[in-house]
């Protein structure tokens, strides 16, 4: 495994950690959903780099499925935020 792949892994892990900080701290529910959406994209990239690192292209299928699931999750969250009551907000 090349040193470049190791650096790439480090950068992505740092990015996931920073996005997770926003997921925990985000003041409103839409902010948390945006952070979760970004974390989904980051994990898709992470899986692709893992497929390169161990030389197994079969993991790209996992990345495809995860991209699909992440999109569906974000759309479902947006739908229910728009429909629902606002329990986190005092109107």
């Amino acid at each position, binding site marked *: 495994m*090349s040193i*470049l*792949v190791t*650096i*790439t892994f480090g*950068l*992505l892990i*740092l*990015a*996931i950690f*920073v*996005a997770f*900080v*926003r997921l925990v701290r985000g003041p*409103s*529910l*839409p*902010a948390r*959903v*945006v*952070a979760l*959406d*970004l974390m989904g*994209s*980051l994990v*898709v*990239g992470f899986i*692709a*780099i893992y*497929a*390169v690192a161990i030389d197994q*292209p079969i993991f*790209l*299928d996992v*990345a*495809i499925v995860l*991209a*699909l699931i992440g*999109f569906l999750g*974000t*759309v479902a*969250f*947006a*739908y229910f*935020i*728009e429909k629902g009551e*606002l329990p986190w*907000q005092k*109107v």
Partner: protein
Amino acid sequence: MAESLSLILLLVGAIFMLLAAIGLARMPDVFTRMHSSTKSATLGVSFIMLGVALFFNDFAISARALAIVVFMFFTAPVAAHMIGRAAYLSRVQLWEGTLSDEMEGCYNPKTHVLASQSPSVTEKESNTSPGEPR
């Protein structure tokens, strides 16, 4: 040669994704956060998938990587639009430095239907336009 180029592409994609995460953590507002995270994460995934396609150098795997890129380019704007609309309709606080909110009052709060102009703006304009016959 192709392998080192693909590794550099992976590194560039990871840097873009790190920039997206930093923007997500540092921006003051849901909408500015989406502005930084959505576009830059899509670009990062595209670079990484380009690097993967170049690394394996096989038609079936390259088609798979390209499918991920196309899928991200289709779904990321849709997801960002939906979550932005939901955030605006649930009255998430804007940043205190926001200069203008052009959609203020345009949404019907009950039905979530967007009108072209808010009622207060139309009233003001009809009062100030002098040559208009009543």
